[in-house]
């Protein structure tokens, strides 16, 4: 295992110290493991809290700031946070209008956020959850844990965050979050595995000519193993899976996201292929993101997320945002 760390069990704490030193706009509670805006809660505004395992940076801490999250709760690497830290963050940012929990649909995240929400309710804080489950690589079924939450999480945090700054209420925030999630789909491909620091070895092995299709963001293998194919075929596979699940048309927001170990030049090569596929299907790229926004440690590969926009969603996407990882308009 080759990493720029001090010790496997100090990675999360050290990274939080780094965020605190790098971003005066954040208030980082290293001991209790949560990050809030330095300014504190905005009275009367619905507060957004998200969290999950670490190793997905900039998600979630990098999205704390004006127009996006009020707090983020990083768990151990790839391990959901515990109720204590979620509860502490929830109480710290409640501005009286209630708190929205943006939860990626993983059993661990769901259960820990649920327990925290119950405890917060006991303390008089109104909490509503929004589940993100956009990964089409996983079959949707009420008999299973359902779909994973991946790239759409960034979109939900940005769009609902913008609406919260404009004064949307908690029920409206829940509905908007569900709408963004329902309109979004993602598909991921891995070229290499990644290594959880505490584990010390890669999660799986891949031959030089093999890739994993339909991976999530936790270094897990995908739904199937395939041959290393040109970027155009990778993009085609991802978009075909998305299109088959929820037919694409009109204006879309496209995110070509790097999983952590893939250089930007390759992400642009993939984006070109995605753009070609979409224009061939009369779909218009109205907004786009290319880069590392929701990662899986040093895994090489990418995920493609497509959100079918409405004028309202596009307007909220364009609204000012000021976070360490996403910033425009101020």
């Amino acid at each position, binding site marked *: 295992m080759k990493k720029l760390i001090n010790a496997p069990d100090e990675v999360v704490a050290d990274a939080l110290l780094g965020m605190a030193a790098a971003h005066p706009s954040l208030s980082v509670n290293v001991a209790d493991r949560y990050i809030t805006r330095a300014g504190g809660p905005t009275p009367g505004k619905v507060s957004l809290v998200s969290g999950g395992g670490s190793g997905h940076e900039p998600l979630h801490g990098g999205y704390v700031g004006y127009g996006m999250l009020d707090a983020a709760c990083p*768990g151990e690497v790839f*391990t959901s946070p515990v109720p204590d830290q979620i509860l502490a963050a929830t109480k710290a940012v409640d501005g009286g209008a209630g708190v929205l929990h943006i939860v990626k649909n993983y*059993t661990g995240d769901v*259960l820990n956020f649920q327990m925290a929400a119950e405890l917060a309710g006991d303390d008089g804080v109104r909490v509503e959850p929004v589940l993100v489950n956009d990964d089409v690589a996983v079959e949707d079924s009420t008999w299973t844990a359902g779909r994973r939450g991946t790239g759409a999480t960034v979109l939900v945090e940005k769009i609902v965050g913008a609406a919260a700054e404009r004064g949307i209420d908690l029920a409206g925030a829940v509905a908007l979050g569900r709408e963004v999630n329902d309109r979004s789909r993602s598909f991921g491909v891995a070229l290499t595995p990644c290594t959880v620091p505490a584990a010390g070895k890669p999660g799986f092995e891949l031959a030089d000519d093999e890739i994993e299709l339909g991976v999530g963001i936790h*270094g*897990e*293998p995908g739904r199937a193993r395939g041959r290393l194919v040109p970027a155009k075929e990778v993009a085609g596979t991802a978009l075909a899976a998305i299109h088959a699940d929820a037919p694409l048309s009109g204006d879309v927001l496209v995110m070509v996201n790097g999983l952590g170990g893939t250089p930007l030049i390759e992400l642009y090569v993939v984006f070109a292929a995605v753009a070609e596929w979409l224009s061939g299907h009369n779909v218009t790229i109205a907004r786009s993101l290319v880069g590392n926004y929701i990662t899986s440690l040093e895994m090489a590969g990418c995920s493609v997320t497509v959100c079918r926009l409405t004028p309202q969603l596009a307007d909220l996407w364009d609204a000012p945002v000021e976070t360490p990882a996403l910033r425009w308009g101020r």
Partner: protein
Amino acid sequence: MDVTRFRAWVAETARLVAANADRLTRLDAAIGDGDHGINLNRGFQAAAAMLEETAPATPGAVLAGVGRALISKTGGASGPLYGTGFRAAAKTLGEDPDVTGVQLGAALAAAVAGIRQLGAAGPGDKTMVDALEPAVHAYQVALDAGADLAGAARAAAEAAVRGLADTVPMQARKGRASYLGPRTVGHEDPGAASAALILQALATVSAGEAG
């Protein structure tokens, strides 16, 4: 079974989980995200440490404290699930200083019920439930057949190991492993493996109980 033995149970579980952490993590790497051993080891070390500090007076207090520690320190899916299980078991024991075989059976049944309710997993979903459910059943059967607490605990531990083996051909329908669908067939479920360890520890410490 008195408070000392309950504390011994937790200590022995912590020891077994630590000794098997790599194995549990390897199992989780195959069909999950490779952290179950790490998570559970963190959780049970915290639980054992908590017992050292607070030295709870009753079996119920021991299990309630373990439940809280697991929920606060484990993370992942297994933390809330095991934590909820231990807390549900604790509730059935109340303040009693000494726990009979019958009471322990009821506590174990309550634990599994709590875990099933929280996680909504049933038998065959390839989860810890597939080790816990048959264990609780075997415990009852043994008691009804006249076994004492220790004997029933041994039967539960053996059933849990069989239940773990039975998860191999299953396709996961709950938890992270469900994302891999058919690729989960042919692997042991890590949570079922850790469940077997917890019951193994119970059998070990209760051996020689009058009950």
